[in-house]
């Protein structure tokens, strides 16, 4: 083992054994300290997520017929849009996507694998139709409204697949402008914030079953966090169905973005995709693999019943952090989508909402 040398710190020659060992230890200590320091910056924000989420849980116990999900998001939104949030909280607030994905993986233990296949199989067919509808309608309307083709594609892919991550993924793949990406993301976030409150309300008026509502939320709500929030705001069962259907949409993200990238490349608007398998793997949501692995472990009896329950309970706490994070990250003053992208998004969202309800009642009896 030799001590590393660099022009800034030239090593005159081989160092004694102890010096090398202590130097290595110092590096490891610095690295561990670095990780700890990086972790610590998330603590204030995560504690705020916990406080807001728990407050939502307490309020829901006192207000009949309401879910903690709605309160956690609403309280978070009120705080974000009325009080200036000190910077120290921002990293932790932004960490909610990690809690969301970890919660989804843990929730896998609660699913029998055959149920995932059953819900996912039916869901997948509807997901393909829903994505196709979103992309085609958004492309058509974008031309009608005089928007760029790429902005139309971004809105289509954002509504059709999984909101912000899909837009970001597609932006890089089709070399869209950052301005277009911002418009598409803002449009999706506006509708996401509205749907969380509106959909459960509509579901109750229509008298939808948990399964019907779960499919609807899973198919029509854009962002994964908002999608799960909408499902769980209706009921536990609806939330679980919405999760599986949404994961089907997320899993197709790579395929749809690849299709778009190839289409734009054929038109000479982007470079060719050379390694398609790599392209797909890079865009595949890996946490879905964790979700499926835990479901398989539980289905084959590798986990005790009390462990499965503990994992499900733990995932609920992670979702509580997530939903508080969704509220605390919703800053209305920054949602400037522009009138035309907003109009295109609105029509596509409305069409998708109506078409998916029809599809669900036709397919699931």
């Amino acid at each position, binding site marked *: 083992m030799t001590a590393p040398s660099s022009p800034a710190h030239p090593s005159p020659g081989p160092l004694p054994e102890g010096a090398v060992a202590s130097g290595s230890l110092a590096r490891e200590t610095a690295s561990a300290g670095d990780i700890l320091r990086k972790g610590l910056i998330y603590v204030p924000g995560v504690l705020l997520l916990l406080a807001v989420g728990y407050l939502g849980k307490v309020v829901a116990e006192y207000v009949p017929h309401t879910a903690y999900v709605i309160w956690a998001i609403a309280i978070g939104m009120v705080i974000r849009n009325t009080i200036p949030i000190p910077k120290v909280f921002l990293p932790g607030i932004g960490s909610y996507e*990690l809690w969301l*994905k970890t919660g*989804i*993986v843990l929730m896998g233990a609660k699913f029998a694998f055959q149920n995932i296949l059953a819900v996912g199989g039916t869901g997948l067919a509807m997901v393909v139709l829903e994505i196709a509808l979103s992309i085609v309608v958004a492309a058509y309307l974008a031309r009608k409204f005089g928007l760029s083709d790429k902005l139309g594609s971004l809105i289509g892919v954002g509504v059709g697949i999984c909101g912000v991550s899909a837009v970001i993924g597609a932006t890089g793949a089709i070399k869209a402008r950052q301005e277009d990406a911002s418009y598409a993301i803002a449009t999706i976030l506006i509708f996401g914030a509205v749907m969380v409150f509106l959909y459960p309300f509509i579901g109750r008026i229509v008298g939808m079953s948990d399964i019907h509502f779960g499919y609807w939320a899973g198919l029509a709500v854009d962002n994964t966090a908002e999608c799960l929030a909408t499902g769980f705001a209706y009921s536990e069962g609806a939330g679980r169905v919405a999760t599986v259907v949404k994961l089907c949409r997320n899993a197709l993200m790579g395929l749809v973005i690849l299709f778009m990238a190839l289409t734009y490349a054929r038109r000479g608007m982007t470079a060719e995709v050379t390694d398609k398998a790599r392209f797909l793997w890079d865009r595949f949501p*890996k946490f879905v693999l*964790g979700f499926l692995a835990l479901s398989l472990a539980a289905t084959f009896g590798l986990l005790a019943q009390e462990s499965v329950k*503990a*994992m*499900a309970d*733990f995932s609920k706490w992670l979702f509580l952090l997530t939903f508080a994070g969704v509220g605390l990250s919703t800053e209305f003053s920054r949602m400037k989508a522009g009138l035309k992208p907003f109009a295109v998004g609105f029509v596509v969202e409305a069409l998708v909402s109506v078409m998916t309800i029809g599809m669900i009642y036709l397919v699931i009896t």
Partner: protein
Amino acid sequence: MTLFGRRVTLDWWSVILAAVVVLFIVVGWVRVPW
């Protein structure tokens, strides 16, 4: 963020974190009732 010098994406972090929680639950160190 990196782990052992390798860049780890958020997706993989969530899987790693979940694996740690599963381990703690299976061993019996973590019980958080909802």
